[in-house]
C-alpha cells in the first residue's frame, strides 16, 4: 500500500539520462517548468510533450512507472479542473441551472491539467534517473554561489541527502510496524475518520521512537567519523562535465529557444508584423 509512492524514488537501469551530470538535469527541470508556464498556444504543449517523451524514451524508465506518480495528485488535479471549468467567465457552452461551463473554462481546465501532469512527470524523470546522493551533490554545486550570502550550502546539502536517504527506510519501517500491529488484530480500514485516525496511534508512536533512535545512532556514527560540518569537505566522485553534458546543454538550450518561439508565436509574429507595418510600409 505504502510502496506505491514513487516521488523521490530511484529506478535503477543503464541510460544516457542516468549518466548525465545532475546539474544538467536540475537546470533542465527548471527550464522545462518555466517553458510549461510560458506556453500560450497548443503547439507549445506539443513541443513540451515531445521533449518529455524523448527524455523518457532515452532514460529507459517504463512510462508506466512515471505515470504511477500521477496517482498521488489526482485529487489536486480534479479540484483544479473543476474550479477552472465552473468559475472561468466567458462564452457559455453549457448551462445547467445556476452553473455555466464556458468555452474558455474548458480550455483553461484542459491546459491546467496538462500542465500539472507534465510538471509531475518531468520532475519524476529527474528523481527516477538520479540517485539521491547525486541529486544533492548537484544541488550543492549548483547552489554554491549562495555561499557568498553566508548560506551554509554544505550543511543544507548534507541534511537534504540524509532526509532523502531516510524516506525509503522509514517507509519500510512503517510497513513493518503496520504489519506487526495487523498481526495483533489492529484494523486500519473500517470505522469513521476519528476512529481511523485513532487506529494510527499504534503505528505512529513506534515510528517516531524508531526515527529518533535512528537519528541518534546516525549522529553518533557521524561524530565517530569526525564530521565537523560542510565546508572544505572533498568528494570521492567530484562532479565534472563530460562531452555528453555539453551536448545535453545544447539540446536544452535549443529546446528553450524553440519553446519561446513556438509557445509565444503569436506575440512574436505580432511584434514582427507591427515592425513591418510601422517601419517598412511607411
Amino acid at each position, binding site marked *: 500500500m505504502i510502496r506505491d509512492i514513487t516521488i523521490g524514488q530511484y529506478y535503477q537501469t543503464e541510460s544516457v539520462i542516468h549518466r548525465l551530470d545532475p546539474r544538467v538535469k536540475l537546470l533542465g527541470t527548471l527550464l522545462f517548468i518555466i517553458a510549461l508556464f510560458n506556453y500560450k498556444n497548443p503547439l507549445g504543449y506539443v513541443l513540451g510533450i515531445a521533449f518529455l517523451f524523448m527524455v523518457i524514451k532515452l532514460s529507459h524508465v517504463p512510462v508506466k512507472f512515471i505515470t504511477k506518480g500521477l496517482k498521488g495528485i489526482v485529487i489536486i488535479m480534479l479540484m483544479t479542473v473543476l474550479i477552472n471549468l465552473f468559475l472561468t467567465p466567458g462564452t457559455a457552452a453549457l448551462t445547467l441551472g445556476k452553473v455555466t461551463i464556458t468555452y474558455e473554462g474548458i480550455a483553461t481546465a484542459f491546459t491546467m491539467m496538462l500542465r500539472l501532469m507534465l510538471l509531475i512527470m518531468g520532475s519524476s524523470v529527474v528523481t527516477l534517473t538520479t540517485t539521491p546522493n547525486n541529486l544533492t551533490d548537484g544541488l550543492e554545486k549548483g547552489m554554491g554561489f549562495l555561499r557568498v550570502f553566508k548560506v551554509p550550502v554544505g550543511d543544507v546539502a548534507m541534511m537534504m541527502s540524509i532526509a532523502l536517504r531516510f524516506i525509503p527506510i522509514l517507509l519500510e519501517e512503517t510497513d513493518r510496524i503496520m504489519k506487526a500491529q495487523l*498481526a495483533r488484530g489492529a484494523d486500519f480500514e473500517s470505522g469513521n475518520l476519528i476512529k481511523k485516525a485513532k487506529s494510527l496511534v499504534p503505528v505512529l508512536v513506534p515510528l517516531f521512537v*524508531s526515527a529518533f533512535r535512528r537519528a541518534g545512532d546516525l549522529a553518533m556514527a557521524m561524530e565517530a567519523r569526525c564530521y565537523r560540518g560542510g565546508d572544505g569537505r572533498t568528494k570521492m566522485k567530484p562532479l565534472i562535465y563530460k562531452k555528453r553534458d555539453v551536448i545535453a546543454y545544447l539540446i536544452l538550450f535549443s529546446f528553450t529557444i524553440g519553446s519561446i518561439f513556438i509557445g509565444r508565436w503569436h506575440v512574436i509574429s505580432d511584434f514582427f508584423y507591427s515592425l513591418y507595418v510601422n517601419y517598412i510600409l511607411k
Partner: protein
Amino acid sequence: MPLILDHISQIYNADTEHPVKALDDVSLVIPEGQFIGVIGHTGSGKSTLMQHLNGLMKPTSGTISYNGQDISDKDFDKKELRKHVGLVFQYPEHQLFETDVFADVCFGPKNIGMSKKETELAAFDALRKVAFPEDLYYASVFELSGGQKRRAAIAGVLAMKPDFLILDEPTAGLDPVGRYEILDMVAKLHKEAGITIILVSHSMEDVAMYVERVVVMDHGRVAFDDTPKEVFSHSEELEEMGLAIPEPMKITKKLIELGIDADPGALTATEAADSIYEALKKTK
C-alpha cells in the same frame, strides 16, 4: 486445524526489469501440535513465508488454507485467522506503543473482541507465561531492558490465545543467556500450553536443540523438510546454501573421520559429549 500451503509463489516487482522471486512453489502442511524450525540464509524467503501464514501477504499464485477455507478468499475473515495464528515479528519490541506494559499486552485481545475482563485475564496469563517480572507489569515500555521488551512483545501476541505461534528470529540481538531463556520459554509454551510453534532462525544450534521438524529454505524454495537428524546429515548441501550444521555435529564428524566411533546424529552438546564418551570408553 492444520495450515496447508499449496504451491505458493510470491514475486516482487513483477512489473519492472528486476522481478524477484521471493517464494517459488512452496508446499507445506503444518499440523497442530508440532514444534517446527524454519531455517535459511538471509533472503531465502523465510520471513516472507511467515507473513503469508497469517494473511499479511497475498501469494502471487497458489493457495493457503486454514480450517479447510482459502484464506485469500474475499469473505474469509482475516481477523479470525490472526486470532488463531499469532505472528511475532523480528525485533518485536519495536512495535510497543502503549503507556505501560500491561496496556500494550491488552492491545491484541481487545482488538479481537474480547471483553474487558477476558482481555485482562488473557494479558495476565500471557505475561506469566513469558515469565515477565511481576513488579514491572505497569512500568513504561521504554524503561525495560532488551530482553524484557521482547518478552512483553511476545506476551502481546500470546494474549490473543493463538493455536499457532510463529516467531521470526526471536533471539536476534540477545546475549547467550537471554537467547536460551527465550527459547526455553518457547519450548515450555509448546509442551505445557500445547501451542504449535514455528520458530524461524538462522542459528542451527537453536533449531537443533528444540524442534522436532526442520524446514530449510533456499532461494524461495523448500530445500529440506524432515527431522533435524535427517536434515543435518546433508551437511555438504547445507554448506552450499550458506548454512552450517550445529557445532557439536561438526566435532563428532571430525572425530569419526579420525576413526573414533561417535554418533553422527548427535545434535546437541550433551548428546555429542555422551556419544564421544561412550566411543572413547569402547576404544579403551
